[in-house]
């Protein structure tokens, strides 16, 4: 198993390199010139090209990417132009606030994570039972209710839902505040519902279809033929099998939650990574954009990695596949040794 985890960790490296490369290239080709951005309006062309040199922007593209990964030592005495690179979580300072970009990100990331985790918990609690009931009572009223609600949830833009919730619960009923911040749990209710809705819908639909698929399987018939009562057939034989694909979807959803937070945070003016990103984009704060996009992309990839590993633990077929693979390999090695 450790071998599998190790292999999986290795596999993620090229993906991360690719992701960072794409995001970096996008910033590189973007029309704005960072040197001109930080200099005053009346700067001369000479000032600008000098600044470009100090910032390392006159280097060839690939070398700049290497700087981006491993750090850049500016020829300027001003230490704020140097940075230690992505691997050291240092991509320099924001053009707007002049704070190290990752400092802001790391400060605010727990807020986003809190929102995402709460939304994840809520969506799992709601969606899995709903999907199971829907599938085991196919064509019943509860199946219809679950199906319709999940279709609506799937079709509702989260930012609109958030504003509708504000209108109802903040403006009309005055139950929850319209602005959210992590210190006030009550203020998190609306954003968590907003963020969880799409996930709940997706997971409920997934659980339902997966469950419907599984209860048609021959081994469910075998379980029934043993004289097992229907509840236990579902709980012991159908559920675990049906949840295997659902776990994958939930894993992918964790990433989506982090990203969906961009919109939800904007609606509720919540101080998370999403608002950093949107602010940075609107202010053309290139280092901050680059750092936050890359950061979220890396977190997304890591979450998917964890899901894959969890997946292997719950499905003995995958586990066995890897165990037999590594066994075959070590046998091969042993034979070579003799």
């Amino acid at each position, binding site marked *: 198993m450790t071998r599998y985890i190790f292999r999986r960790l290795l596999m993620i490296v*090229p*993906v*991360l390199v*690719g*992701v960072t490369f*794409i*995001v970096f290239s*996008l*910033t590189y*080709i*973007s*029309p704005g010139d960072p040197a001109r951005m930080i200099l005053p309006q009346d700067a001369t062309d000479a000032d600008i090209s000098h600044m470009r040199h100090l910032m390392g922007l006159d280097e060839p593209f690939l070398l700049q990417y290497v700087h981006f990964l491993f750090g850049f030592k500016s020829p300027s005495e001003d230490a704020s132009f140097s940075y230690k690179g992505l691997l050291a979580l240092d991509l320099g300072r924001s053009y707007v606030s002049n704070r190290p970009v990752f400092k802001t990100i790391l400060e605010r990331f727990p807020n986003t994570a809190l929102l995402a985790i709460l939304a994840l918990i809520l969506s799992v609690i709601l969606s899995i039972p709903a999907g199971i009931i829907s599938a085991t009572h*196919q064509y019943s009223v509860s199946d219809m209710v679950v199906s319709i609600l999940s*279709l*609506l949830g*799937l*079709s*509702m*833009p989260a*930012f*609109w839902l958030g*504003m*509708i919730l*504000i*209108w109802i619960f903040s*403006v009309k009923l005055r139950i929850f505040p*319209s602005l959210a911040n992590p210190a006030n749990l009550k203020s998190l209710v609306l954003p968590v519902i907003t963020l969880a809705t799409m996930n709940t819908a997706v997971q409920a639909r997934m659980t339902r*279809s997966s469950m*419907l698929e599984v209860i048609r399987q021959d081994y469910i018939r075998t379980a029934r033929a043993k004289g097992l009562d229907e509840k236990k057939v579902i709980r012991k034989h159908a559920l675990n099998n049906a949840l295997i694909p659902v776990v994958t979807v939930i894993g992918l959803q964790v*990433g*989506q939650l*982090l*990203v*969906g937070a*961009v*919109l939800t945070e*904007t*609606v509720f003016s919540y101080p998370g990574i999403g608002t950093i*990103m*949107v602010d*940075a*984009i*609107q202010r053309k704060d290139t280092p901050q*954009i680059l750092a936050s*996009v890359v950061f*979220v*992309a890396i977190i*997304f*990839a890591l979450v*998917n990695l964890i899901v894959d590993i969890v997946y292997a633990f719950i499905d003995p077929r995958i586990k066995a596949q890897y165990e037999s693979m590594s066994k075959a390999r070590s046998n091969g090695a042993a034979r070579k040794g003799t």
Partner: protein
Amino acid sequence: MEKKLRTPHATRPSARKSAKQKTAFQEFWRRFKKNRLAVAGFVIVVIYILMAIFADLFFSYDFITENQISNAFAPPLTTAEIDLNNGATAQHLYILGADNFGRDILGRIIHGARVSMVIGFTTIAFAGIVGSALGAIAGYYGGKIESVIMRGTDILLAIPNILFALAIVAALGPSFQNLLLAIGITSIPAFVRLMRASVLTLKNQEFIEAARALGARDFRIIVRHIMPNCMAPIIVQATLGIAQSILSATSLSFLGLGIQPPSPEWGNMLSDARSYISYAPHTLLFPGLAIMTVILAYNLIGDGLRDALDPKLKR
């Protein structure tokens, strides 16, 4: 158990194309028609498409982009005086009310439909063609070219859709073309994977071997024999993809990174409405409903198509 579905599968390979495929399509259409929700979705989409095409017949573009400040926030079903360009005034019925600049919300929704439909269709047409072609190549040729394509796809998939679109728009600046590009590119990987998987299952089947034995060239085999047999999942993905792409576009516009005001777009209408939630909730309600119904409609069609194309998935 003994119940057999004797229906010909929509993707059945057949050289005797005409007769067989016609019945397969009829069978598919029969099943699709029986799904009332899917038909409802289809009707809604047709209505939106007609709205998009004939938007100018309902409201002129100038009218819905020009401010009528005196009528700002007029509630639904108010009749108010509007300034015409020639200095004259006229009475106008605001069916869904007016926004913060006194612009007709219904008119902006109808013209917004045009923007959303164009975005949905062009991005998915682009992603569908590029993605299917890449997927077919990867699946058919295998080897190095496959590795390159699939690793590229993996990397694209490793960046969440909206985030990637956000990054593209941030880099290239918010404009209609960049929005199309951003959403188009992020929609590609799903098609690559689907197409590759279909091609892999098809490529070693006998009728392909037969075509190869008869000396058909690769291009011909892919285009004539393989592609038509992979269409079912691609069509489903395209339908759901349109919904996704409209949603992404409105999201980006809501963040101020897509279509810029005064151009009418549902997302930027909601962005404006955000500041007036307590004051004029109708400015919030209707554009959102417009987005929701159209996405819902595409999802219904997508579900209906999937069930109709693959009866196994249903009961």
